[in-house]
């Protein structure tokens, strides 16, 4: 495994706050291990095809992430279909645009489940948009496989139908902050995070890393899309922290760093996994040198044979080179197909049972995946990289972390 990353923080507004409250009230508190029932009705499965679906941001400020993930997944399913599909059936993968909006995601997921009658949710990208549909998926008992939504509310048996393959932001920022504190011993840390659960989770992670140590933390919530970052840059300069941690959209991250640079404040920086991507480094690399970035997926140029195989096959299917989010989508699809292949029958309960029995599944892109009857966090490791020039060499290898 080597480096690379994923998706975007988000817009957390009143609609999402309400969604989270409803979500907390509606999730199932307990769940017995899945028992495969081959005779139950199987929506979305016919003699010739298996319908899968996901919602992602395909338009709007976070579109780059969703478009990449969708392209990666579609390329993988195309390859599988050319090879005969799964259990003699073609994969019919449908992606609907949720615009990164919880409200739109709810509508689109209802369309996928109730009108299109998908068999399972395969992948997905974005935190608030996916969190918004979790209560519905729980009620409808639709399995969701490997969505990229690193929220601390997911990955436990409180949401048994959701199988996570990304580490939540609390853990991600705890690991990153611990590395910074141990290595650089900063007296002050600032954090700028998307207002709501994304920023709050990152704050909790840093606080856990600080523990009873003497490092102080300044937290500034942010709402995406501000036309002027000077006030927030001035606030940061006023605090004069040694390190600034960031969990914002890639555009806002770059724009804030530019504003900080313009007013003469250039602390060391650390950011969530989305900044380890060529689409960020190309426009904003000049103000991001030395940035420590969480690493959740292998580097595109990794020597790992599985990653090389991915790059080769993706390029063959699409005629272009992949990026980080294409890599993510490819891995999500690969995990989904593996579960379908391993299912004793194409019913949702059998798919759940197959996922629960998945152990040490190697994609080469994300760390080895293992679920269980009471385990929904399939991956629990991250690495760290540093932006140097246009490259992102690894500074710490993927390390297994303890569940919070």
């Amino acid at each position, binding site marked *: 495994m080597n480096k690379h990353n994923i998706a975007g923080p988000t817009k957390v507004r009143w609609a999402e706050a309400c969604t989270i409250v409803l979500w907390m009230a509606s999730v199932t508190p307990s769940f017995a291990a899945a028992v495969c029932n081959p005779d139950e009705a199987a929506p979305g499965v016919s003699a010739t095809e298996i319908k899968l679906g996901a919602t992602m941001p395909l338009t709007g400020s976070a579109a780059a992430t969703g478009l990449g993930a969708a392209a990666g997944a579609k390329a993988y399913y195309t390859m599988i279909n050319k090879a005969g599909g799964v259990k003699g059936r073609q994969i019919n993968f449908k992606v609907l645009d949720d615009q990164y909006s919880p409200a739109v995601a709810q509508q689109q997921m209802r369309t996928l489940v109730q009108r299109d009658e998908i068999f399972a949710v395969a992948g997905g990208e974005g935190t608030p948009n996916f969190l918004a549909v979790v209560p519905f998926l729980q009620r409808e008992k639709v399995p969701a496989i490997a969505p990229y939504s690193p929220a601390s509310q997911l990955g436990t048996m409180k949401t048994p139908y959701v199988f996570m393959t990304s580490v939540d932001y609390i853990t991600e920022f705890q690991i990153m902050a611990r590395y910074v504190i141990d290595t650089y011993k900063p007296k002050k840390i600032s954090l700028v995070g998307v207002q709501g659960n994304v920023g709050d989770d990152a704050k909790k992670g840093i606080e856990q890393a600080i523990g009873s140590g003497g490092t102080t933390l300044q937290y500034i*919530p942010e709402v995406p899309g501000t036309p002027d970052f*000077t*006030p927030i840059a001035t*606030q940061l300069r006023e605090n004069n922290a040694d390190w600034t941690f960031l969990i914002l959209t890639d555009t806002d991250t770059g724009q804030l760093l*530019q504003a900080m640079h*313009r007013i003469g404040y250039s602390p060391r920086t650390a950011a969530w996994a989305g900044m380890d991507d060529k689409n960020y480094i190309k426009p904003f690399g000049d103000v991001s040198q030395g940035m420590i970035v969480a690493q959740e997926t292998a580097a595109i140029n990794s020597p790992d044979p599985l990653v090389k195989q991915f790059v080769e096959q993706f390029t063959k299917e699409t005629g272009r080179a992949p990026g980080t989010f294409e890599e993510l989508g490819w891995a999500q699809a690969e995990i989904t197909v593996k579960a379908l292949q391993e299912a004793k029958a194409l019913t949702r309960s059998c798919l759940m049972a197959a996922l629960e029995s998945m152990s040490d599944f190697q994609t080469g892109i994300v760390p080895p995946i293992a679920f269980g009857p009471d385990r929904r966090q399939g991956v629990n490791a991250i690495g760290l990289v540093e932006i140097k020039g246009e490259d992102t060499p690894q500074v710490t290898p993927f390390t297994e972390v303890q569940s919070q």
Partner: protein
Amino acid sequence: MFSSANAIQVTLGGLATGSLYAVILFGIILVFQVSRSINFAYGPTGMLGTFASYALYSEFGLPVWFAVLIGIGVTVLIAALTDLLIIRRLPPQQGFDVVVTLGELLFLTALAQLVFGASAQSYLKLLTDVPVLSRNIFVNGNDVLAVVLGVAVAIGGYFVLNSTSLGVSLRAAAADPSVAQSVGINVRGLRTAAWAVSGVFVAVGAMMFAARLSVNAFYMTPIVINVFIAGMIGGLDRYWPPMLSAFGIALYQSWAMYLFGEAGGVPALFILVIVILAAVPKRLLDERHEARA
């Protein structure tokens, strides 16, 4: 720690932002005063010109000055075509312009995403890397240029609209098109020209903002929302109130973000709007005849 240097820094940043708001707002005022139309596609129009200039110098290697000129030209063309092909053909009822330009906004945004991709791109520096002051207070050339442009457009625009024959023709065409036509003013041509000229202002504003932020298909949306709010507060059929509002809301929002955090900026702005609408005597609002604005 709060310091006078930080206070000045925030104020100067807000002033530069407000100046660019004023540049963009002038185009909106021009269009509204001559044709009574609201162009919600105004922001994406500037975005497309900016993106076009970016593509021309970065992908096709054209000289920067030439790429910028073509980018402005693209914006002018889109603005003029909006009037020629869409606005002119609408029935006179109020509201159609709003609906069709909202549709155009969505179309242009989707077009930009399709042609240029969804990722943000770093635009020309446009003096952002030229320090003017750089001790405790940092001011760069782009800030100075923004303020100079904002003040020049505000004063120059007032002069043109109120003290030239062109301004008289514009106001005559807006007040009573048929009378203006009867005295020899080419009202339709004048309106299209006003739309085209508005493109210059949004293109310049969009390019200046792109230098401070970056360019993608969506970056002009929050900017133009703030500009329309300034227009609404001041009244689009007036001149100095909306122009001063452009400066005022940028300064106000900068301070709100500085004092209450970045997440406080948007709520603070809408609180201001509510307070103004509640506090300003209804008589003044009614006199504007512009509830739709």
